[in-house]
């Protein structure tokens, strides 16, 4: 498409210039011109089409008139021959010959009109396609331009601070950092969980061994009532480990 070549040439030319606004303005101007040209072409071919269709209608009306005449004269000839008026039949036949020649000519002209109409209709359809495509291209340029301007505004905001325009690379860095942080958090949480787990396990075993107070069981409570309530801790050296839960419930 010629339009692509034009735009690419523009970009090539502008590569030496600082800004891109020039390129966009030129591209838009070219695209606008192309749309106007295509729309004019479309209007012209529609005008031509209307004219030719009118001419075809006139030619067709004429043809129908001639055909009516043809039928009429044929009847006259038949009638004249039936009444044995050969001279009159001859005269009408001469006229009919002219009419039939005219019919052939008109028919040819109408055929030519039909060809032109088909051609114009197809070129109108083509022009419509071109216009639609160009309008899409204009939409793309405009949308791209809005986004580009917004990004340029962002870049300008950063320019003063010495920071550069944020890209996917910064985001990727952030994602990696967050993943590392999350992994570290998980690790700490796991260690904590493990530590408390280990602690709990030790406590449980200590309680089982009767070294630290465990849960009060019916057994330990009964034992408390049954024993002669010693004043001191059971430090007489008697191994009591065979009765877990009893030993330290005395305080």
């Amino acid at each position, binding site marked *: 498409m010629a339009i692509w070549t034009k735009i690419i040439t523009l970009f090539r030319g502008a590569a030496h210039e600082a800004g891109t606004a020039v390129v966009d303005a030129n591209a838009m101007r070219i695209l606008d011109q192309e749309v106007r040209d295509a729309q004019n072409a479309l209007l012209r071919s529609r005008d031509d089409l209307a004219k030719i269709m009118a001419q075809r209608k006139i030619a067709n009306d004429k043809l129908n008139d001639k055909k009516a005449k043809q039928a009429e004269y044929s009847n006259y000839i038949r009638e004249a021959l039936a009444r044995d008026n050969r001279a009159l039949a001859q005269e009408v036949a001469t006229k009919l010959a002219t009419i039939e020649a005219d019919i052939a000519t008109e028919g040819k002209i109408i055929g030519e009109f039909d060809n032109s109409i088909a051609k114009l209709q197809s070129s109108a359809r083509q022009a419509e396609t071109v216009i639609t495509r160009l309008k899409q291209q204009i939409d793309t340029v405009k*949308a791209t331009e809005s986004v580009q301007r917004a*990004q340029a505004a962002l870049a300008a905001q950063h320019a003063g601070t010495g920071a550069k325009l944020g890209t*996917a690379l910064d*985001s990727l860095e952030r994602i990696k950092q967050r993943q590392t942080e999350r992994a570290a958090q998980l690790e700490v949480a796991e260690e904590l969980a493990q530590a408390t787990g280990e602690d709990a396990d030790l406590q449980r075993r200590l309680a089982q061994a009767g070294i630290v107070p465990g849960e009060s069981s019916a057994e330990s409570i009964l034992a408390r009532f049954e024993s002669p309530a010693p004043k001191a801790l059971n430090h007489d050296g008697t191994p009591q480990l065979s009765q877990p839960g009893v030993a330290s419930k005395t305080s």
Partner: protein
Amino acid sequence: MNTPWTTESLYEALRSDKSVDLDGVELSLIGGVDAIVNITMHDHGDLAMHMAVSGEQIFVSSPLCLATQVKDRAAFNEACLRLNPVNPLSNLGLQNVGGEDLYIVFGELSSRSPLPAVVEEIHALADNTIQAAEAFADHLK
């Protein structure tokens, strides 16, 4: 045929429609003659994307990297061209932004696209941009 979106109507729809999945996606409208929507993708390292509607098209763009961050421009350009056809839904491009060349990943949709398609485009573009940044790691400084 449904009516085409404008930047404003699309922004309003994205904000008010509760059925769309926009978790971790922050939207803000920047008004003006040519309004645009700023999109911050919190689940994609706060990637900043932009969206604008013009006539028949929705344009969504995401900044990949600055040309100054590329080691070998020629090699990188070729890598981009080779990746482009296999990159689903998104395209790679080069734009001059504020006097600086910026590689972008972008997508285009019809402005008559249903809302879920627009949301899918936003997510796909963010995914593709981050994946492209990862894939091109060797080419970047």
